[in-house]
């Protein structure tokens, strides 16, 4: 799953920035990531701006509410429209979260953790395989931040993710901030954790900011990425030994686009430094 078009650090395309980004001739962003739920079936000025950018620049797609580990039937109309959208954007893959978001036809609009059980693995593997069969591009699954285990666990998160990725034979969208936040909340070493996972399946990396609330750290996507998370990204790239695309997510307290472009450049420098080390190692 190496696509030359998709290297470096991209940026999540967000509504407040559409006007400015649509008018930029040289923004320096190698690719954008967009959430199809926010574009498919929409209309009006912002929709037109989003489509103009997505038709102009390289794009990766990232779903929010498919509920891969849930039980609700797929929305066939949406799946059809999603397929058309993925083809239109030319995305090399489509990512979804390894979680559930719907129960009994109600969408909760939150990424909720799946039980770390053998039954849950079997169910999620079957769902992911079924979803993959309905998409025109390869499916990636993303590890989420979780704040509680759902029910009595039969395995830990690392074993659960490994079992699902390997059972479903899908690629992995590795969110290093989620790993870092989970490590803080559950008290483990993120590098030891990553070393246990099938890193050969990583096709893309997510990076974002988080915030501590009392005893709990929450994946807010509402602050700058902190240095230890950047260092974890570099460590991961070194461990992977190949340049997978990294995507900066920002969903809350969204700053002006210039501020975010500046943060992206800072991450790009860190990314480049990791690749230089990688090349030196291979030389």
């Amino acid at each position: 799953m190496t696509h030359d078009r998709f290297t470096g650090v991209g940026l999540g395309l967000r509504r407040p920035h559409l006007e400015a980004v649509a008018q930029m001739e040289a923004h320096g962003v190698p690719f954008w990531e967009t959430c199809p739920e926010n574009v498919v079936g929409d209309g009006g000025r912002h929709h037109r701006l989003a489509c103009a950018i997505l038709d102009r620049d390289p794009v990766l797609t990232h779903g929010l509410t498919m509920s891969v580990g849930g039980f609700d039937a797929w929305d066939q109309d949406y799946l059809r429209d999603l397929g058309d959208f993925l083809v239109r954007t030319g995305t090399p893959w489509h990512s979804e979260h390894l979680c559930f978001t719907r129960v009994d036809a109600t969408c909760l609009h939150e990424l909720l953790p799946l039980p770390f059980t053998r039954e849950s693995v079997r169910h999620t593997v079957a769902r992911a395989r079924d979803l993959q069969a309905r998409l025109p591009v390869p499916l990636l699954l993303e590890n989420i931040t979780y704040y509680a285990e759902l029910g009595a666990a039969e395995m830990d998160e690392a074993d659960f993710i490994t079992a699902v990725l390997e059972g479903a034979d899908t690629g992995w969208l590795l969110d290093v901030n989620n790993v870092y936040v989970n490590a803080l909340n559950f008290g483990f070493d993120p590098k030891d954790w990553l070393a246990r996972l099938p890193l050969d399946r990583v096709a893309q990396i997510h990076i974002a900011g988080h915030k501590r609330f009392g005893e709990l750290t929450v994946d807010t996507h509402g602050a700058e990425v902190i240095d230890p998370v950047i260092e974890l990204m570099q460590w991961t790239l070194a461990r992977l030994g190949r340049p997978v695309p990294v995507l900066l997510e920002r969903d809350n307290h969204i700053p002006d686009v210039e501020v975010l472009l500046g943060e992206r450049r800072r991450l790009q420098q860190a990314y480049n430094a990791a690749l230089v080390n990688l090349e030196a190692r291979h030389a």
Partner: protein
Amino acid sequence: MPESRTLRLQRAMASFVLDADEAALEADPGRAARRHGLSGDDQRAFREQGEALRTYRELVRMSLVEPLEEMFPVLRALLESTELWDGCVQAFLDARTVRSGHYRDIAPAFLGWLAASGWGQERWPFLLELAHAELLEVLVARYPDADPPTGLHATPKPNDVIVLDPATQLVSYGHAVHRTTAAKPIPEATPTHLIAFRDAEGEARLMELTSATAALLVQARTRSLAEAAAALGIPELEPVLALLRDLHRDGAIAGFQSLENP
């Protein structure tokens, strides 16, 4: 076939984050797991992680309630002034009517629930109109883009029918809900007619109409302009045609179609 444990756990989580009785959850976080027939081990997991599960309760509620706070500021101000906003939101969550995975559909789901349930409308007969008016421009602004109707001409003639732009909405209320503010959320009871449409830039615009113009825009979609004007007792057609030209120029009307050569 027995329900899977995974499904029961997911249902228990949904109960935990959506159910009304926060005090009961606080006292016994294992309650949701028990109600869904889960084992003692699963109930214990809920009890032992009660605080973390309450984080999910906050996050889900934030996701579902923020669009309502943003889209219905006047309705919220009215209900908060009587300490009923939280009750209204909980009744909406209890109904579990958020089906769509599109975040933009949460506010319309609330409006649909308000219409179906009649919540609060005995006390405030204008409540549904108020909520509708608050969302109207957003609904128009984000109406799904589609190919424009074809075979239309730009200049209206007496024997034409009107074809509205697909995003345009004509609404009639019994109250002047579009003039309310968070500081003055109670509308005057007076017939109100509005047209909401997208301009050439794709931005929503709202215009107040007289009752005669509103009726003409409704009737002249199925009968000729001349016939509709006569039925409504409008003696002069030229001012009507001038207004229609303006509405076409601004984007509210897609065009005109002759009844003779449709």
